[in-house]
Every structure is written in C-alpha cells, then in structure tokens.
C-alpha cells in the first residue's frame, strides 16, 4: 500500500517539477545564455539605470501599499468586528466584495470614476469651467491608490478573522489588572493579532509585487518590474526579459523568506481559545458608526457602480456631458450577438474550466497521496504546489513562454506558445496553490479513521474515494476550485504574455476596447466578468468557510 503511494507520489512530483520547476530553470538558463553560460546580461541589467529604477519602484510601491492598505483595512475590521450597529453584517460583507473581483475590473472601474475623463474629473471640470481635466490619474500615486483600493480587503479580512478568534478573557484579564483601553489595545490585542497582520502584510506585499494591471494601465512612464519585463519582451529584448524575470523571482522569494522568518518561533499563547469578546452595542454613536459604515461602503462600491453605468453608454454618445445622455443595453447585446465580441467570453470560460479542472485533479491527487499515503515525498508535493504563489504571474508567464517555444521533446520542451493549449496551461500552473492548499486543508481536516472505517466495511480504493473522500472534502475543494476559476476567468498577467488573437480572453479584450475608445464595451465585459466571479464565489467559494 505504502509502495503504491510512493510510486504515485514520485510520478506526480515529476509532473509538477515539469510544470512548475522546469520552466523556471529554462528561464534561468536562457538568462545565463546557456550553453555559453555568461553573466553578461546580468551585467547589462546592472548597468542600466532604468532597470534599477523599476526594481526600486516595485519594492517601494509594494511596501507603501502594505502601509496604506493596513491604514484602511485594520480600522475597518475593528469597526465591523468590535461594534454592533444597524446594517453591520450586510455592510461588513459588502466591504469585503473587492476580494472576489478580478484586479483588472477594479482598475478600469477606478479609471472610469477617478480617471482624467472619469465622472469626478468631468464634474469638477464642469463645475469650475476648467479648460482641461483637473488631474491626470497617472504615475506612482495613481498606482498606489488603485493598490490600496483593491488590497485593503486583505487586512480587513485577516484582522476580522483574528479579532473573532481572540480570547475575550485575555482582554478582561488585562483590564482587571488595571490596564487602560489604550494599553489593552497596544499590549494585548495588537500583539495577539500579530500573526493575522503579518499574514495580511505578506499577502499584500506579494500581490503588489506581482501587480501588473494597475501599473500597466495607470503607470504611464512609471515602470515597475512586471511592466518592465513585458516591455522588454515586446521590444524583442528576450535575454533582458529573462534576466528581469529571474531578478523579480529572486526578490519575491527573498521577500517571502524575510517575512516568514520574522514570524518563526513566535508563539501566541492563548490565541484561538476561549470566546471572542462581545461586540459593543454603541449608544447614540451607533448611528454615527452606521452612517460612517454606509458612507464607506458607498465610496468603496462607487467605482463598480460607475462601471455598470458606463457599460450602458452606447459608443460615441458621451462626449462632453457630465452624465451620459443615452443609456441602453446595446453593449451587452453586442457581446452575445457579434461573434468576435462573444469569442473572448467563450475563450475565457472554456480555458478557465479546463485550467481549474486540471489544477483540481493535480491538487486533489497530491493532497490525497501526501496526507493519506504518508509518503516521504508529501512535503515536496506540497512545496511544488505552493511555488507559483510565491512568484509573480509575470515570472511564470515568461518562464512558460521560454520553456514551451522550442521543440525538444527529449528534454520535456514542446512548442505550445501560439497554440490554444498554452493559456489554460498557464492558468492551471498559476492556480495550483489555490486548489492544492484547499485540497490539503480538506484532507487534513478529515479524520483518517473515516477512510479506515470504510475500508474495514469492505470498500475498495475507488469506492472510498467516491463515497467518503470526495463528499467530505467537497466544501474545501469547491472553495479552492471556485477561487481558481475566478482567477483564471479574469486573468490578465499570464494572458498578456501568452495570448494569441484566436485565444484572447476577456481581460485582453477589455484592454483592446479601451484602446479603441470603446469604453462601453470594455465596461460591459468588466460587468460580466465581475458578475460571473461574484456568482461563482457566492455559490461555491464560501462552502469551505462554512465547513470550517
């Protein structure tokens, strides 16, 4: 039995090494100009000031995003978790909504509201009778604003979860020992929340470092590493693109290691036990809190409301007016009636389904073999599944394009770039951490005695898989799969490096529509994408949370 698990684990590890590790190695080899093995491209990288500027920009933007997102997300979490006021539950869920929306949707929604020709700029321009738009939403400030808007939710969710797990008795003990509210907050509550805050900081940092759509759309001349890589690649400077990719991967891994090391050995005693402190039922101020909460929710959802409004504007009907003069469903109708407009939708759907299915099969198989089979390769399988999370999507896109643009079957390289297979493959590799982590969590929560009980009652391997493992891990698997599906459906980072005209997905079509000044069509795609993503998340994505 153990031998069979070891064989399965070895085959799976080989497959994952081929999918995850091999493209990265090929990228490194190309950056070193194998088989000549030279560091001249790295030297060239070090000589160019624009490369250093992009690297520095990636780092400071990511650190600033962490600070800004924490400044918004943490107080919001305290407001919604520690106080009781009318509409708290509904608003609390609403505020978390951006987490399920594809980043590009948030970016274009922001553009339509706060961009130089967005609602706010138009209104101010009209109000003060200005010659031109009062601002240009471009450069690092714009990128930072969009990042804060799309990533505060990590701090919000992590801090709320941390507060909900807090043992109220610890706070009461501190108060009983004479600590003031401020002392309780700084000496007890925040130190206990440290793992949650570090987790949120890590996630925000990594997401920001990997961010592509915001700097691509709002960056202007301001380059970060992800946009620099794509620019180098589009300019035909492939070797430099490889060096930049390797550098970004190294920075991501170092950042990850540093952040993880800062938390090692830190044991939070008492965390997760006891009952969370009761919410304060605010007196008169609860109406103030409710008003603040409602106002904030409106502010945070305004960009998406704008997106819906813009999607109803027919092409060429909105020029200098503050509000669009004509609204109809024409953009949506053309999405389904015009073959070329429907194609990106169909492409994204089938590619997301295939990629999710693949990632699901690999994640589930690895988790079942690693957790059940107690194989020595379990740790390797789990690490391989997690690697794509630690590296920016651009890194993987470039790595896949490097590995699969050459026909050399004897070293595991095939020409997939330019075919319909490469994008689903890219999405699948990117989504391995989501399905893998969900499957591992599902199996670890499962009492191994259930499998043994089924075996003792005469059930063979397949029946145990079908009747016990699948139904019991289904909530976790569904949560992981729905997140993977949403990510693949709205992907922009992988797509912009690997798409072809025939396989162009929704995100690429949104960008093309914007370039062609078809803002209504771009917004309609955005609304469809956001609606599909939210529907999938609310139907299946929350089942994992319910089961835990």
């Amino acid at each position, binding site marked *: *039995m153990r031998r069979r698990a070891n064989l399965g684990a070895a085959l799976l590890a080989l497959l994952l090494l081929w999918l995850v590790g091999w493209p990265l190695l090929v990228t490194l080899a190309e950056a070193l100009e194998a088989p000549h093995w030279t560091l001249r491209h790295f030297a060239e990288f070090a000589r160019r000031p624009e490369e250093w500027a992009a690297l520095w920009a990636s780092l400071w933007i990511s650190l600033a995003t962490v600070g800004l997102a924490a400044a918004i997300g943490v107080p919001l979490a305290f407001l919604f978790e520690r106080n009781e006021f009318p509409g708290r539950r509904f608003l609390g869920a609403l505020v978390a909504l951006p987490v399920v929306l594809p980043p590009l949707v948030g970016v274009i929604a922001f553009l339509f509201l706060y961009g130089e020709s967005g609602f706010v700029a138009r209104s101010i321009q009209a109000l003060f009778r200005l010659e031109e738009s009062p601002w240009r939403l471009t450069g690092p400030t714009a990128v930072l604003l969009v990042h804060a808007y799309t990533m505060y939710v990590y701090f919000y969710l992590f801090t709320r979860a941390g507060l909900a797990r807090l043992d109220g008795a610890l706070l009461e003990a501190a108060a009983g020992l004479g600590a003031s509210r401020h002392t309780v907050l700084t000496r007890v509550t925040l130190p206990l929340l440290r793992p949650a805050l570090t987790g949120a900081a890590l996630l925000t940092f990594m997401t920001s470092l990997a961010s592509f759509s915001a700097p691509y759309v709002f960056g202007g001349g301001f380059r970060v590493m992800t946009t620099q890589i794509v620019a180098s690649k589009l300019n035909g400077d492939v070797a430099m693109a490889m060096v930049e990719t390797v550098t970004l991967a190294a920075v991501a891994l170092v950042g990850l290691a540093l952040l993880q090391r800062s938390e090692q050995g830190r044991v939070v005693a008492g965390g997760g036990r006891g009952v969370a402190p009761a919410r304060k039922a605010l007196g008169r101020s609860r109406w103030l809190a409710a008003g603040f909460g409602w106002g904030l929710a409106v502010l945070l959802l305004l960009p998406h409301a704008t997106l819906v409004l813009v999607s109803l504007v027919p092409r060429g009907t909105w020029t200098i007016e503050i509000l669009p003069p004509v609204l109809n469903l024409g953009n949506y109708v053309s999405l389904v009636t015009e073959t070329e407009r429907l194609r990106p939708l169909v492409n994204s759907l089938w590619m997301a389904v295939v990629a999710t299915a693949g990632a699901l099969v690999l994640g589930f198989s690895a988790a079942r073999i690693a957790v059940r089979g107690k194989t020595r390769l379990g740790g390797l399988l789990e690490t391989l599944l997690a690697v794509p999370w630690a590296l920016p999507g651009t890194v993987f896109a470039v790595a896949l394009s490097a590995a699969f643009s050459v026909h050399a079957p004897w070293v595991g390289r095939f020409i997939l770039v330019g075919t319909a297979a490469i994008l689903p493959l890219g999405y699948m590799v990117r989504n391995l951490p989501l399905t893998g982590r969900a499957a591992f969590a599902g199996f670890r929560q499962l*009492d191994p*005695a*259930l499998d*043994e*009980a*089924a*075996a*003792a*009652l*005469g*059930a*063979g391997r397949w*029946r145990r898989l079908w*009747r*016990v493992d699948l*139904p*019991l891990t289904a909530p976790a698997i569904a949560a992981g799969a729905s997140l993977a599906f949403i990510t693949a459906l709205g992907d922009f980072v992988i797509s912009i490096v690997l798409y072809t005209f025939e396989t162009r997905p929704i995100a690429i079509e949104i960008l093309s529509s914007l370039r062609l000044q078809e803002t209504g069509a771009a917004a309609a795609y955005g609304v469809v994408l956001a609606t599909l993503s939210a529907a999938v998340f609310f139907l299946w994505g929350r089942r994992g949370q319910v089961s835990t």
Partner: protein
Amino acid sequence: MSTPLTPTLSPPAGRGGEFLVLEHLDKHFGGLHVTRDVSLSIRRSEILALLGPSGSGKTTVLRTVAGFEVPDSGRVLVDGEDVTLLPPERRNFGIVFQHYALFPHMTVGENVAFGLRVRRGSDPAGVRSAADIRDRVARALASVDLAGFEARKVTEISGGQQQRVALARALAPEPRVLLLDEPLSNLDPSLRGRTRRELKRIIRAAGITTLFVTHEQEEAFELGDRVALMHAGSLEQVGPARELYEAPASRFAAAFIGRSNVVPGTWESRGSDPAGVRSAAESRGRARLPGGAAWPAVAAGDLIDGSPVDVVVRPEALAFATARDGMAAQGSVVEIRFAGRETYFAVLLDTGVEVEVLAAPDAAEVGWKVFVAPATEGPAPRAYPRIAGDFE
C-alpha cells in the same frame, strides 16, 4: 424489544478452538519498537480485552489485526487463514473506532447500510436486494435499541447513541471478528457503566469473536472473558480477570491492576508456611521489612535468600494489628479516604514508606499510632525481585 444479531454463516472451528491467532507480531515505527513478539490466541465467540497504559502498543496490535498496519514480522490467522497481508477491505472484520468514525455526510441508516451495500454481489451470504439491506439495517439498529433511527443525522444524536450506531454498522455485515478501540472512552463517565453492560449484551447476543482495546481496568474486567495485559510493546500476562488481580505475573501487572502497596524488603525463603512450594516459580517465604517485621509472601519468580525484593500487597490484604505481632510494622495514620462501606487509611510506616489499608470506617483516626500486618484473608502479598531504576 431488541433483536439479537446472529451470524448466518458459522465458520468451522480453528485449531484447538483458537479462532483468531496472533503469532510473534513485531512492529517498529521509525526507531521505536512498538510491538515486541506478541503472540495471542482468541477462541471463537470469546471476548478478549487488551489492557495497558498509553503507549503500551495495544492499539498497534489492534490495527495490525485490522490490516491498517503490516507487521515487520509475525502473522495474523483467522480460522487458520493467514490474513497478515490481506487489505482491510477483504478481511470482513467489524471495527468500532475510538471516536466512532461515523460518516458525517450520511444518515444513521446510510452508515449502517454502508458495509452491506459495499459487499452486495460479492458476499457469499447471498445477493442483497435493497429491501434486504433495509431489513438488515433495521435489525442491526434494533439490536442496539435504536430502532427507527434510520433517517436521523449522525451529528444530531448523543455520544452514547453514536457509539451504538458505530457498533450496529460494524456488526451489520456479519463480520468474522469484531475489533473495538477504546469504544467507551468518549462517553461521559456516568454513561459508561450502563453502556458497558449494553455492549456486552449485544456482543454476547451476536456471538462474535471480539478483541477489545482499553486502558481502563474496570472495562477490561467487566467486558473481557480474558484480559491480555500489555506493557512497553510486550504481553505481560493473559488470563481471566481474577487471575490477573490475585496472581499478577509481574511487578508491573501487580502495580497496574487494582490498588496496591509496594513495600521494599529482603527475601527469606524459609517462611512460616512449610507446605508453601506451589511451583518452581511460586514458592512461599517471607519478606523482612527494614523495621524488622516479617511479612509472609509468595515469591513471584526465582528469589534467593537475602536478595532485595518489592512486596506488592493489596489494601484489603493488610489489616491493623497489635504490637505483639511479629509481622506488624509500625506507623501512623496520615489520611483517611472514604470509599463507602469501607475506608482506605493511608499509613506512613516508620520506615518512610506509605501504605494503604482497607478497613472499617471507625478502625482508626488521623494521627493514631498503628501497627500494620498482612490480613488472613485477601490475596497473599507477592514478592518481586527489585530491579534497579524500576518505577516506584
């Protein structure tokens, strides 16, 4: 009324009435030797309790019998058939897990039907139609006094009911052997006594050969026809409960089973009982305590004159005595532990050893100077060779 489950297939008797045989089972986990040369035979329809402290290897033995672990060496035989390498799903054993392992996504009825549905078509007992399965599920549930519980969710019933569902699920496919892994440990102490008796009634009614793991002596004694005591991976002693209590084969067995006092002394083979030699291993003599008192004792193992021994004596085998008695050791009562009709008196002997004496509640008061000596009734004190570094 409950309907007893009776196996429809009665397998032929094994050699010498032995139905489940474990031969020289040995198992390592990494560098840890968890099972050491365990050999054991269980007769058809016998209930054998595998008793031992945590980490003694009893659960590993049970899991090896079930097929979840493969021994490094040794064999498991059922009715003469070697099943050592047979996967669990092909052994036809019923297992009740410590936490029951009821499938949470199935109802009570679906849980009990699981083993029947799995075996449908492949079972020599005959093709089982849906109606047949329903009937067997109903009978299995009735046998554990849960008739009509088929549609209930397993998460909505009490711990005691879950335990009985687990038993019904294990028994429904009419297994050859029933294995129970601490099945009562999850229950409220107030429920355990009653559940234990019900469990015994159901197993007896099914007439099934049963191996039952527990660390609770009371459970082992009440449920088991025989008790196998394990310690550090090895079998210490196998026998009826009374034998384990009255004639423990080792100092560990003596100390683990029941309440006992351990008093150090020196062995003197020419004791007061001239007819004393029972066997080579069990001769009578006496143990000289440091204060001069000499307690008659049975030598457990080979003892030579003057060798240091530990005398193990039950509280009920000690009594308060007079100073004139040459067997009496002097001490003072330091604590009284009330236990119903009789009371345990903790007596600190002048030699510094504390012993417990079971006597009438008014026999002494705290602070009294008393003399303690072996009683004329109760299990005789047993002397074991003292091993350096042994437990207290």
